[in-house]
């Protein structure tokens, strides 16, 4: 976008600043709008799986329900518990929300359409997603209340456990793509198996993708791994003491994280902005549309799981992370690097 602003008579540095800000807005605003719609979609899917109607009052088919909720929450009073650590109590939801938006900087929306085309893009995503836990931990501690504190403990242990296996899973993808850059990873998936664009068609990488999907649910603390906000044990977990906009920021951040996880699934394993099959006619559809279709598909899977699978017990969660996913993902790192060495992929 820099040449566009330079053509309008700005110097390079000004054009760079203006275009970066414009690109950030171009990503952040649609993501926020998508989050509002996705919350509605989540409730609708959940409702129809439970044979209910779901939100159907505000706007046609209740589509404006999220905006009505947002307005309601915005007008509520912000309550800060008197025993809370005020500064940290208010910073915590801001951290969650900011971190949820930050990782979108490296997601490629089309061949050249990425805000920061850095060559360690995947490591950046891993780094930013590991920051997300601080919003929860700080909230739990600063609320100075028992249930949020339990929730913070659970969140930190859960996040660390699943980041280990996610790290190994990402290494499998990086080994095959030969790059940490997300755009290069998407391009490496072209014609991966026959005419299918996407690592998922590869028999060695398909089980890795299944593990990534499940670990992603655990990493975003989404059902069935939502032990940090298990209402039957912990009231509402780390959000217990929050009200008004601070509470809304947690909701927005949580769903932005889920959308990001869907985008990562699409980008790393399902060919990102590439069409699913390498047929010339499919390239007439813009890459952004393919990416959005894939993100919506994954979000449907996330909702589906939330509506149907009961919540894990904490020891089961730890067992799944450490005793199943960690050895399995390590095995696949060995298997894939062995296969790539044997077939001379790195020649």
């Amino acid at each position, binding site marked *: 976008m820099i040449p566009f602003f330079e053509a309008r008579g700005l110097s390079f540095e000004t054009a760079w600043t203006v275009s970066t800000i414009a690109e950030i807005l171009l990503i952040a605003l649609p993501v926020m709008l998508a989050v509002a719609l996705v919350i509605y979609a989540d409730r609708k899917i959940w409702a129809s799986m439970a044979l209910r109607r779901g939100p159907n009052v505000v706007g046609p088919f209740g589509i404006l329900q999220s905006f009505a909720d947002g307005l309601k929450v915005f007008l509520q009073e912000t309550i800060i518990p008197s025993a809370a650590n005020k500064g*940290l109590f208010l910073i915590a939801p801001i951290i969650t929300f900011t971190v949820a938006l930050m990782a979108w900087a490296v997601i490629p929306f089309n061949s050249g359409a990425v805000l920061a085309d850095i060559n*360690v893009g995947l490591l950046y995503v891993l780094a930013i997603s590991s920051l997300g836990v601080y919003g929860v931990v700080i909230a739990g501690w600063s609320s100075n209340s028992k249930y949020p504190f339990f929730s913070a403990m659970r969140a930190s242990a859960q996040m660390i456990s699943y980041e280990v296996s996610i790290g190994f899973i990402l290494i499998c993808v990086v080994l095959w793509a030969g790059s940490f850059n997300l755009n290069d990873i998407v391009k490496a998936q072209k014609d991966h198996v026959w005419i299918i664009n996407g690592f998922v068609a590869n028999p060695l990488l398909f089980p890795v993708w299944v593990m990534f999907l499940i670990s992603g649910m655990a990493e975003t603390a989404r059902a069935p791994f939502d032990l940090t906000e298990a209402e039957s044990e912990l009231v509402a977990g780390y959000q217990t003491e929050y009200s008004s906009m601070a509470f809304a920021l947690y909701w927005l951040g949580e769903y932005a994280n889920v959308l990001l996880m869907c985008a990562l699934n699409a980008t790393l394993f399902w060919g990102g902005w590439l069409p699913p099959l390498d047929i010339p006619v499919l390239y007439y559809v813009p890459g952004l549309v393919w990416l959005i279709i894939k993100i919506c598909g994954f979000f449907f899977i996330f909702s589906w799981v939330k509506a149907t699978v009961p919540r894990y017990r904490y020891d089961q969660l730890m067992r799944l992370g450490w005793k199943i996913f960690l050895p399995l993902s390590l095995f696949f790192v060995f298997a894939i690097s062995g296969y790539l060495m044997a077939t001379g992929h790195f020649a």
Partner: protein
Amino acid sequence: MIQAFAFYLFTAIMLFSAVSVIFARNPVHSVLWLILAFFNAAGLMVLVGAEFIAMLLVIVYVGAVAVLFLFVVMMLDIDFSEMRAGFIKNAPLGLLIAVVLLVELGMGLGVWHAGALQLGVANGASATPESLSNTAAIGALLYTRYLFLFEAAGIILLVAMIGAIVLTHRQRSDTRGQNVGRQVARRPDEATVNVKPAVGQGVTL
């Protein structure tokens, strides 16, 4: 211009938060300041063109080590007056460590200034060889020239990890764990009995 601005911003925040780690009254605040210092150090590394190290710093230290620090510190019930009581006793040791660190830093900088070390320049122009990305450059060095040192470091870490597990792991006989394999292998006919008791007889268990 933007680089200089970012450099001074990161440096100022990092120095301030590093000082705050020591002066914060609450240990949880100390850890949070420490995290901010790590984060800004990563920003400085990005500025000199070492983005791989910067990301690893955030992933390893901010994402894992500091979370565990926070985990432990949050659970401790710390008595602040007791903590300050040992200050005079520990001050000489602390000063000694500080002097050692300062000397090491000075020696490192001196060697660099004398030209014995090849490092990147401040604007990141020669941090890595031309035409090679950061990650590839580090990998090429680690897995060729420093392969044995790298593997030795890996083995030491592995031994340390196994040692820590052996020291802390204890078999407990008073808890009942879930045996998932046994549960899954269990069939309905061995777990349930279908009885048709005569009316008025009831069931004997």
